[in-house]
Structures are given as C-alpha cells and as structure tokens.
C-alpha cells in the first residue's frame, strides 16, 4: 500500500499566509525606501518591472507552450500608449517638431493609473489581432512570426511620426514609476496569472503545452485557450511597458529599448528561473536585475589586480549571453523547472525533512 506522500494545507490557511506575506513585503518595501540608497531602490524597482515582464512571458511561453518572441512588441505598445496619454499638452507640442501630433492625442492628458490600464488594454487588443491568425502555427514558425510582428511594431513606431515622433522618441516623461507602482502591479500580475494557472484553466493550458492534439480530444478548445493566454500575457506586458517608459522617462524605437534585445533579456530571466514556473520567473527577474546592474561595472573603466582596464562596451551583453548559453547547455531546468514554490510545496518540504530525521 502506497501512502499519499503529498499533503495539502487547507485553503483558508493558504489565503491567510498569503495575506501575511503580502503585508510583510509591503513593510519590507517601506523599510527599503527609507533605508536603502538610490542604487538599491533602482534595482528593486527594476525587479518589479522585470518581474511583470517575466511572469507574463512565462505564462505564454512556459505554461501554455506558445513560443512567442513578440513580447517586446506588446511592451512597446504599452510604453507608447501610456506615454502619449500622460505627457502634458505643452510637452507634446514641444516634442513633436517633425510633424504635429494627431488629434485627439494632442489634447488629452490622463493620470498614470488610467494610462497604464489603457496601455495594457491596447497591448491585449493587439495580441488578439495578432494571435487570431497566427496561433494556428506551431513551434519555431510561431516564434519567427511573433518576432516578425514585434519588428513590425517597431518599424511602424519608427515611421508613424505624427503619432510616435518617429526615431526621436518621446522624451521628458514624468517619472511616475517609483517603487510602489511596479510592485503593486507585480502583485496583481502574480495573483491573476497565479490564480489562472492553479485553476482548471491552468491545467487546460498545461495540457495544451504537453500535447495539443490530446488536449483537443479531451474537450479543450485549444485555439481559444491559447488566444486567451496570449491576450492575458500581452495585457500585463503592456502594463510593464507603461511602467518601464515612466521609469526610463524616455522611450524610443531602438532595438535595445523595445526590440529583440528586450525580448531576449526577458527570455534569459524565464529560462534562468525555469521555463514554465511563475515563482521561477520571479527569481529569474530578480537575479537578472541584480546581475545586469552589477555588470554595468565592466562597462565602465575599472581596476583588476591593480591593472587599469578601460571601459568595454558590449561586455555586459556578452557575459549575459554566455551565462544564458551555459544555462541552456548544462542546467536546462533552471532554478524551479516547471514546479512552483507554493505554501503546499514549502509545507511538504518541511514534512519530508521531519520524516527523514
């Protein structure tokens, strides 16, 4: 007789623990804001933004198994939408000197929260329009198509000067993104996507990832579920784009800002954390934020064993991509693999420890 080795905590207890944990995080962030210097505040803010990007991408790529390389396109749409909505009318008149901004964008200004939500909605609408025709493709074809879409978005931004200010980008955005906005939205992202993943919908999405044909045969509307996941992921990518723009305070259509390199960075996070794990994506985002900020050192002149080493531009990306390839070759499951760090798994970990003793 095999005894059931996995035990579950009562739901109430888990809700209670989650509330305690959230309160604890709020307290920690509050303390951080009081005590830490700007360098660490910057990293904490970045962890929040990257966290949203990584969780939303892993929801699409890792959990539903739609290998999308179009995340930067959704982030770009979100960034531009909200930037155009929050900029003051004078600021817009000043920036758009190549061509004037079209109506009605030239005469509205919204608060940051509404602008961010509209940014998410715009990204979601775009995802629906893209996903509807392209989700019948699979695997690498889908990857290249979504990459193509994100490039199309970038080229459109570059060329639609009367909406986006073209190559000059949008400058002088209000620095709304403090430490609270990203972490607040991160909480919403994790709660929404986490709820979905742990529900019957999450099981359906994972089933689609494992075997779309079998999932169909078990009564799952594969296209509809994939599209839903794609749209939900894009919504939060749009949100993160808004936060990102108001953190950078400037947004432009270079590949480094909203192109393939941004998608690549998010891909590093989710692969490092374990493709298909939300908690993994959060760990990945945190490690990436710290590592990439720390690697800025190698791009400024520094001393190694008493030898003056000049600034080497590009070194940061070289180190990151090397780490990325090594992770893929030697440690493909990443930190979490496809499992999640949940109250149940922590509880069971301690149960097992006790059993061993």
């Amino acid at each position, binding site marked *: 007789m095999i005894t059931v*080795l996995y035990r579950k905590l009562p739901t109430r207890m888990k809700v209670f623990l989650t509330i305690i944990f959230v309160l604890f995080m709020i307290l920690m962030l509050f303390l951080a804001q009081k005590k830490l210097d700007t360098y660490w505040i910057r990293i904490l803010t970045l962890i929040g933004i990257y966290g949203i990007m990584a969780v939303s991408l892993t929801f699409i790529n890792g959990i539903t198994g739609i290998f999308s390389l179009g995340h930067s396109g959704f982030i770009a749409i979100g960034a531009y939408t909200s930037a155009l909505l929050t900029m003051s009318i004078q600021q817009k008149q000043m920036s758009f000197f190549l061509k004037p901004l079209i109506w009605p964008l030239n005469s509205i200004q919204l608060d940051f929260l509404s602008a961010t939500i509209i940014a998410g909605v715009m990204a979601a609408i775009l995802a629906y329009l893209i996903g509807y025709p392209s989700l019948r493709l699979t695997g690498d074809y889908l990857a290249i198509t979504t990459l193509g879409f994100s490039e199309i978005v970038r080229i459109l931004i570059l060329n639609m000067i009367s909406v986006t200010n073209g190559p000059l980008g949008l400058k002088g955005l209000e620095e709304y993104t403090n430490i609270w906005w990203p972490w607040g939205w991160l909480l919403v992202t994790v709660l929404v996507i986490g709820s979905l993943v742990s529900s019957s919908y999450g099981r359906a999405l*994972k*089933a689609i990832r*494992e075997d779309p044909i079998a999932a169909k045969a*078990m009564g*799952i509307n594969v296209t509809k579920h994939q599209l839903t996941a794609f749209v939900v992921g894009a919504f939060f990518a749009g949100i993160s784009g808004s936060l990102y723009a108001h953190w950078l305070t400037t947004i432009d259509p270079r590949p480094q800002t909203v192109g393939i390199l941004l998608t690549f960075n998010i891909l590093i996070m989710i692969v490092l954390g374990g493709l298909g794990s939300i908690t993994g994506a959060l760990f990945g985002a945190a490690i990436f934020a710290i590592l990439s900020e720390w690697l800025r050192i190698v791009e400024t002149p520094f001393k190694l064993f008493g030898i003056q080493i000049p600034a080497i531009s590009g070194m940061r990306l070289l180190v990151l991509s090397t780490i990325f390839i090594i992770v893929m070759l030697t440690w493909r499951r990443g930190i979490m693999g496809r499992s999640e760090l949940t109250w149940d798994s922590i509880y069971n970990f301690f149960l097992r420890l006790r059993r061993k003793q």
Partner: protein
Amino acid sequence: MERETVLKLDNVTMQFGGLVAVGDFDMNLEDGELVGLIGPNGAGKTTVFNVITGIYTPTKGKVIFRGIDITGLPPHYITHLGIARTFQNIRLFGDMTVMENVLVSQHHKLEERHADKILQKHGFEPKVVGKGWFWKSILKLGYFEMERRMIREAEELLEKVELSDLAYEKASALPYGMQRKLEIARALATEPKLLLLDEPAAGMNPHETEELMEFIKKIRDDFNLTILLIEHDMKVVMGICERIVVMDYGRIISKGTPAEVRNDPKVVEAYLGDGSYA
C-alpha cells in the same frame, strides 16, 4: 428489445490528395455494444477514429452520433457531446500528475456552452455548469467549490479504475500498463457515451492483456458505454467483441460475429496477402 443507435457512419469517405484512406464506409453502433475494428496496417482504422472525433472532416458522407449530425464539428465539441478516445501511441500529459490528467478532461464542463446548446436542442441533459468560470477562477468567486467538486469526481473515477494510489504521481513516471489504463481513465472523465480505444493492448504481455480485457468489459458495464476498439491482438478482439468489422485498403471487406469473420476467406486473404500475420 430495440436498442438506440449510438453512432452511424453513413457513406464516409476520407481522401488525402489522391489517396483514399477510407472509402464509402458504413457502420452502425448500437447502445452498449462492444465492436472491434480490425485490418492490416495502413487499412485506415485510425483514420476512421480521426473522422469520428473531428480531427479530420470527411471528404464525403455523414457522421451521426445519437441523432446529432457531428460531421465537421471541431474535436472539442464532439468530446463534449459524448465521444472520447485513446491514442495508439500513448498521448498522456506526461508532466502532469495522474489526478491532473483526469481533471483536464472535466474542463469542458466549464466552457463548452456552444456544444451544450446542441445537446439541449436534441433533448439531452446539459453538461455545462454555470458560466463565467474564467473570471470566477481569477477572482476566486465560487470557484473553490467547483474545484472541490471536480477533485471529488476525479477521485471517485480513479477509485473505480484502481489508480487512486498513484493519483499524485507524474503520468510519465507510471509503468507502461498503468499509462494505458490512465489514458482510458482520462477518456472516461469526459463522461462519454461512446469510447474509442486505439490498440489498447499494444505492447502488453499476455497477463496484462488478460487484465485489460476484464477491465474493458467492466468499464462498459459500470459506465454504460458503447465501445469501438481497434486491436491487432486477435485474442482480445475475438475474446471480448460481440461484432467485428474488418477493413482493408480503406474499405470494409467483412463484418459479423467473431466466428463469422474468422472463417471469411476474404479476411484470411487480406491478412495473408499482407504477409505480416501469416
């Protein structure tokens, strides 16, 4: 007693380019029957399954399930209406637990409202329970109750098929025979009226095959099923099927009771001509 016709294939033809995989196929399955579909490799047996379950839309002909014309409906509709299947090469959701594999098959009861309308139109019991589950599952409004209910049903099913002990094992970690069984259990969890089994005994040893035969008969009675079965193991087909349909080159070459089919010279020729069953 007159039995209800569960499935009727009417002159079904499935063509791929110039190749006729299934041609002018007629078949009737009556309530509670256990029918075998046999034939040499490449005879088009699995194509018949794919046409019934909506993976292919037939080039010609009709598929009628309990009086509902299901020709050309998408697979998830057809599953919701009450046809479930297993696959020749096991297609479990390997990275998920046994329990999750079974739970996936209940998901359509939250979602398939369009297919449900078809059921109601034809006077059957609706299967969908409530609506707006997507938002409810995000906001956790009344969702926990649903989840508990689904888990309870899954537990009952696993109990019936004697897989309870393995409920929290990963599907890919199960021994081969258990994987075959889980595939059947997963199909049963969709609450089918008609079950299509594609070579359930493939790769099993004689002892496991023996058990499987008992199992198939048992689930037919416990779940009130009609079963259509593709199998190469003649012992299974002859042992449990009441009727047998023999295919070769996409066409029916013989049908009848096991005894009739066994003595049909055309069947012998089809197998001997093929060379692999001499």
